């Protein structure tokens, strides 16, 4: 903190941490930084402790968190370097459900990992700011506060709705935030930094749905998607030729959930590379006119994808489930006085908004639907990383603002008022 009157650009950093738990990944990092320190998949591998690869025995304090309470110990494998290794008996579990933390034991493991391996600093030193979905229930919020204060001894804690933070990350306090997440897409109106809970709408069409569609499409095209870990070597072949590869010898007893998870990552990669949102509703002729995109599958098979790229992403813009419809519904549910401001600041965030052409399509569809009396403006940060991490970045901004430092729920307040004050203090 410096400057003429002790205020440098209104910022004052107090070493706070920002956690942004999502369905696809958990973002964690220091406030005032522009990107999270880590982006960890929101799944945890749970395997028997009996099997420990030798390489890790040498480093007992490696990236493995151990729970040494019971005899039949379980090991928790977190983050890609641990998780993506084929281990017999390792089940993949997620702690998220419907935008909220559901399995708190697993989530604790995740937080342990964050503090010890990512932040590498004791939790008592850092105020923690968490993001939450707009529809997070009261018990879940209170449970989180309890966890942070009682287990992690955090000096201060705060909860903010991720839509509000995404608006902040775009420099807006009033915005209509479209969050294209992994499990769902939502549209939340934000007025003066408060999310309008009753006007928020969501649909289950998200990144995961797109991945499922990709799987379906590839099945229909009779293209086999092999997980990358199963390939020992592959030969260079011509386009559309049969793949020639040798399989790796894998340990027996790989769990179904893990295999499915790895395959899903593979499909995600495919979607990420190939899927392209067309600017207008899908139309064979215009889609065919765009040059195809080459993709090589893990097995070595490769081919050009032309109109399929556009057809694939059409599922994101279905009539009543797509983002444009959600935006209209959310705006329609708001007070008439607020609508003009909301239409003027439609902010897109989330990983789904990074898809090529997604934002343009949204803008175009909204232009057709928005009342003509309003000025419509659809914005999103230009860089894909900033879109994906919009909520985290907003949290990073908020937690490092000088005038925010009075808002934290401190541990003293928690001790006095209990978790009941959470509803009042974190609207």
């Amino acid at each position, binding site marked *: *903190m*410096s400057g003429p*009157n*002790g*205020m440098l650009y*209104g910022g*004052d*950093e*107090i*070493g706070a941490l920002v956690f942004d738990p999502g369905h696809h990944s958990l973002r964690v990092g220091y406030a005032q930084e522009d990107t999270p320190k880590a982006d960890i998949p929101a799944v945890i591998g749970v395997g028997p402790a009996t099997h420990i690869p030798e390489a890790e025995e040498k480093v007992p304090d490696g990236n493995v968190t151990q729970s040494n309470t019971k005899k039949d110990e379980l090991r928790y494998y977190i983050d890609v370097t641990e998780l993506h290794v084929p281990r017999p008996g390792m089940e993949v579990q997620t702690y998220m459900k419907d935008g909220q933390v559901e399995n708190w034991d697993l989530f604790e493991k995740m937080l342990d990992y964050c503090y010890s391996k990512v932040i590498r600093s004791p939790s008592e030193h850092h*105020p923690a700011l968490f993001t939450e979905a707009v529809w997070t229930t009261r018990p879940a919020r209170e449970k989180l506060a309890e966890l942070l204060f009682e287990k992690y001894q955090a*000096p*201060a804690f705060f909860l903010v709705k991720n839509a509000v933070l995404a608006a902040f990350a775009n420099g807006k306090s009033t915005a209509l935030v479209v969050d294209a997440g992994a499990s769902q897409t939502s549209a939340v109106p934000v*007025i*003066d930094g*408060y999310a*309008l*809970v*009753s*006007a928020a709408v969501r649909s289950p069409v998200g990144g995961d749905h797109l991945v499922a569609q990709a799987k379906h499409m590839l099945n229909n095209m009779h293209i086999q998607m092999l997980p990358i870990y199963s390939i020992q070597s592959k030969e260079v072949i011509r386009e559309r030729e049969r793949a020639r590869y040798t399989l790796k010898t894998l340990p027996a007893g790989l769990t179904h959930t893990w295999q499915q998870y790895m395959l899903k990552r593979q499909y995600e990669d495919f979607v990420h590379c190939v899927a392209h949102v067309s600017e207008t509703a899908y139309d064979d002729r215009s889609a065919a006119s765009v040059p195809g995109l080459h993709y090589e599958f893990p097995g070595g098979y490769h081919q050009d994808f032309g109109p399929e790229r556009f057809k694939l992403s059409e599922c994101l813009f279905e009539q009543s489930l797509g983002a444009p419809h959600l935006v209209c519904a959310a705006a329609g549910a*708001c*007070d*008439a*006085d*607020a*609508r003009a401001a909301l239409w003027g600041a439609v902010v897109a965030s989330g990983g789904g908004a990074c898809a090529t052409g997604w934002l343009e399509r949204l803008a175009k569809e909204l232009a057709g639907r928005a*009342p*003509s*009396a309003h000025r419509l403006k659809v914005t999103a940060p230009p860089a894909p990383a900033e879109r994906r991490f919009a909520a985290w970045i907003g949290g990073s901004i908020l937690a490092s603002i*000088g*005038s925010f*430092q*009075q808002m*934290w729920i*401190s*541990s*003293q*307040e928690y001790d*006095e008022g209990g978790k009941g004050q959470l509803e*009042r203090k974190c*609207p």
Partner: protein
Amino acid sequence: MADILDILDIEHPGASEITRDSIIHGDKVKKKYVTTKAVRRPEGMHREVFALLYNDNKDLPPLLPTDTGKAYKQTKAKLGMRKVRKWVWAPFTNPARKDNAVFHHWKRASDEAKEYPFAQFNKQVSIPSYSESEYNQYLKSEDWSQAETDHLIDLCQRFDLRFIVIHDRWDKAAFRDRSVEDLKERYYNICSILSKVKTNPWSNTVTMVNGEKRIYHYDAEHERKRKEQLKRLFDRTQEQIDEEQMLLTELKKIEARKRERDRKTQDLQKLISRADSGNSTTNNQANVTNEAAMPTNTVSNIVRRHDRKLHKKKLATQQRPVRTVETVTVEWSGIKFPEARGTGVWLRSQRMKLPPGVGQRKTKAIEQELRLMNIDIAPTPTEAICKHFNELRSDLALALDLKNALASCEFELQALRHQYEALNPGKTLSIPPSICNTNADGEAKPLGEIIDVVGSPGALNSTI
């Protein structure tokens, strides 16, 4: 240099002992400027060229730009003279917080501890408060229970009177759903009641004007209506919007046409009154004013009816190429000769000079008429001749204008007749002989009919 001389065992003549002087003024001793005799500039050589060739040392000018000035030496930065100011990870308390929570941040070690600067931004809206007895005494309402009112005031405090957010967070499970206007109405009502009975210092609804309290009055009914309108505006379908847009453009067109017609009738009025004053017969006067008043009415009526019809037709069918009525511009006629002249002596013939406003063509036409009447173009300007000559020419000009107007009306009429026949093939439009007049003596015609001529295109159109 001295070292080399020492090695080579050569006696250095100038080697002097180190003295206090040589240390302090060591630099200055070395600097010996060799002043050579100034070379004279050859005759005819430019000073600049000479300066390039010969400087003080008679050196050649450098091939490369060199930088030997002392500028940088003098302003040498004094680095490493002072220590860096230290930063410390220091605890601080924030007076804006009610608990005395201690957070840490980086600050300069040298900065003295002062109040947390961001605490000054901790501003809150002042919300009225009331005790239970006060509530029972003043604030009772059949529509609102006390619990509900308390909830409202609590939310107002929490969300700083952001009523849209308050409405969103309203406890719909415990209380019935209320509109933003309901909430606002209740809140401002409480404010005004409490500010009357109490002398509370909350200021956001009470303003002092000339030492007298003014309470903000919230007009809920008006706000509700306004919002209803706003909602209707937003809920329009695309067809409705398009239709409205279309109607607006139509309206603009119609208004333009109407203005056009108004101007025409006005011009005609002028013509009439002018011609009338030219006739200056008293019995005609009353007649004409009657007539003049009446036609404008009928014309505007026709225009309105015509507009409406046109409108319906346009809604029903695609716009047909209806020939718009050409403007018949009738300028003000007659010539006004300026009376008063400048001071001093002037010739009377000056009075007969046409004023500069009269155009070339008109002048020519008048002269032509005069020639036809065998009148001298420049008669002897006696007093009487001047007057009569001017009057004559003014009347001539008016007659010409009327003739022109008649001709253009005639043309209009014929054009519309052709249009009518084109649109309704096989039919012919019989024009009543009272209108149809081709013998072109405008002055002889009754004045009302001239107006009818102009009014008729509208009437004709409306019958199509």
